């Protein structure tokens, strides 16, 4: 009996670590990404996030259940984990590729952690307005104001002035920026939030997102406020990926040089 169980488990783990599972999951992932992109073009970014990219199961035509992105990612994650333990070879020649696979594990794990824990809000302020109440992203679609999920930020932001400049003689925007005042418990300081230059406060980050003009010369500015304690995870994964790719490149280059030298010597 114990032999049977052992055999079953060894087969099972071999399957989990198998290239077959990798290729099939990757194929499914590719198809899903295509489908999700097309879906997004028709139904918008938010619907695509909810129905395809953030779903365990998707229903084709509303009926046929198919694995969603989360399920396929989970399969790939387990496959990768099993491969790292059971299949990949721990040799110096393979060091770069090993790092690349570890970085992918970290990307997927980190991505999952961020998807679960990170929160994104909108904060819209008119010039002169001061507030610390932001609205959960996605909730702005709610028709009634009481249905919108709100959150109180640890600091108040006061919009002093929003400025939009254009390249002269054109309709190409050159910059969007908001001069704000940050009001915390006992200090007030001024800051500028502009495109590509966000404001960071503890684990909150404020980004210049959009603006509106009310037609009377007044302007309002919308910031996206992101609270993401796992923000550093993709950075570490990226560093691992760079190292791994560079390492593998050097290994390959050395092998190619050696080959071409011996090929030249031999004849």
């Amino acid at each position: 009996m114990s032999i049977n169980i052992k055999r079953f488990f060894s087969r099972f783990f071999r399957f989990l670590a198998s290239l077959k599972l990798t290729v099939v999951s990757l194929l499914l992932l590719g198809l899903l990404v295509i489908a999700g992109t097309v879906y997004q073009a028709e139904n918008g970014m938010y619907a695509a996030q909810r129905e395809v990219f953030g779903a365990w199961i998707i229903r084709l035509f509303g009926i046929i259940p198919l694995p969603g992105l989360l399920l396929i990612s989970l399969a790939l994650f387990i496959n990768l984990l099993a491969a790292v333990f059971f299949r990949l070879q721990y040799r110096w020649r393979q060091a770069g590729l090993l790092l690349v696979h570890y970085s992918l594990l970290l990307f997927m794990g980190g991505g999952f952690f961020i998807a679960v824990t990170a929160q994104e809000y909108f904060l819209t302020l008119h010039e002169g307005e001061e507030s610390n109440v932001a609205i959960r992203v996605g909730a702005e679609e709610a028709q009634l104001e009481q249905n919108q999920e709100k959150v109180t930020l640890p600091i108040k932001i006061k919009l002093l002035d929003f400025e939009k400049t254009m390249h002269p003689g054109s309709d190409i925007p050159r910059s969007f920026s908001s001069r704000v005042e940050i009001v915390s418990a006992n200090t007030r300081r001024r800051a500028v939030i502009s495109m590509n230059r966000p404001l960071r406060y503890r684990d909150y980050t404020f980004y210049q997102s959009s603006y509106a003009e009310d037609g009377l010369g007044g302007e309002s500015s919308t910031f996206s406020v992101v609270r993401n304690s796992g923000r550093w995870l993709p950075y570490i994964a990226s560093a691992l990926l760079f190292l791994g790719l560079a390492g593998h490149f050097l290994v390959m280059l050395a092998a190619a040089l050696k080959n071409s030298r011996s090929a030249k010597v031999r004849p």
Partner: protein
Amino acid sequence: MRKITILALLAFCLPGHEARAAAPFSLEPFRRLVVLEQGRKKPMDTFARNLLKQFSGRSTLDGMDASAWLARVIFTPQETLEDKIFLVNQPEVLAAMGVEGQDRGRFSFAHLHPGLGRLHQLAFQSADQDESSRGRVENEAIRLFYNVSAYYRLLNAFNFARPGEEASRDPRNAPELPALLPVFSKPDEQWLSPAQAFARGSSLPASMQKEISLLAQAVQAYVQASENDFARALDAFSRSVRNRLQPGAIAADKLFLEIFYNRLDPFFKAELIYGLAMLLLLLSLALPRWRLQRWARLCLLSGFLFHTFGLAARMLIMNRPPVTNLYETFVFVAWAGVVIGLLMAWWQKQALGILAGAITGLAFLVIAGRYSLDGDTMGMLAAVLDSNLWLATHVVTISLGYAGCVVAGIIGHVVIVQELLAPRSAAAASTARPMYAALAFGLAFTCIGTVMGGIWADQSWGRFWGWDPKENGALLIIICCAILFHARLAGWIGHIGLAAGSIGAIIAVVMAWFGVNLLGVGLHAYGFTSGAARGLLAFVIAEILFLAAAVPLCKKKNRAASNEMSN
């Protein structure tokens, strides 16, 4: 409203036509006048070129360069009415205008003139339609009307300087082209055309009144063909404008470089030379005794020098990394493909490297050339994209990744053709090795570029990954390459499968590169023409047909060959 007034005016003042030769003297001072267009201060030479390309699809007219053409249009308008400069791609527009013309071709203003009222009506009705419901003819009507009215404004741009012409004192009626005179009104810098400045009359500062009279002198000098007076007036004008601007606002050396770049037209030259390299290479395969391969490599190398000069000149002129817009991605990927080809040629695979480099260079420079007809290829950057650091890293690496995959796909065609001609030959197997390397290069750089894009997005918008179509496209390339490498590792595909997969990777690349622009959503959607969409679709279908026909045939021949061997 303005366009309607212009068209109403148009009906009245069609001057007669008298022939005279183009200016027999140097137009250098004219070429280096500074014009503001779409937010960029550029030499008149570039302005003229973009305009003539936009009108006619060419950068010269009857052997005359664009500046010489534009000088005639604005200084001696009556002489240009018979010039065939308006390219009409859809002859139905001509029929709708009620003017003669059966085929796609170029027509003069005088020829189109009787139908302009109808064109105006058609263009405005079309413009009112939703963009997605417009057909080819509607779009062409809008384009033609836009071009004709721009030309008409240029005809009247210097009326104030011509004795006997009525020039309006109402700034609203003054043609706003070309914007030559900067004024500083808060909050933005604004540039006026000579006619607009003239219409403001005595409210202008003395320096600008002086500038207008200098321009009027230049018009007189041009008409009297007096070279010295022409140069003196325009140079004095340029000096005066420069003195009013901040020091360094216009760099004279960059103007010269840009005019030189225009005149050299390096990408067009590179395109021709790459074509020649390819021809020589094919000839060398047919006639191995002629030793043409060295000449093909020399061609590829000299085309590459032009190409590199063009890239470098653009970087210097704009103070930018090499890739900032869709046009430049074509130019840069072409360049990277040639670099990879040259490296391969140097690393044993002589003919294959030349072939892959020349095809990539030629194909993408041809696409770039088509794309450049849309207007200035050195546009200003919108605020979201304005970051030299990320443009230099993310965009460059991802373009290198595209180039690697494209080269792998081109070699994939060679592998399949070799397998068809001689199944299980050593030649195909040895061609497959650089294909594998190019694909690995493509995968690595696409990975790095995508991750850098994520870091840029996190730095600027607070999210590393957002399932934006362009991100999905890059992910798709990565998935495609990853599938190939893992399937290869498992032994499920050999080099035929890898070759077919590399061609699949090209399809993934073109979809990610400009296919997602057709979807028109997300941060990376920078507009694309419908003609390009059809071309893209035709390309993808052709590749799929090629694969569907060639791969099963390859497999069959392969099996037959191995049976023969075992027998």
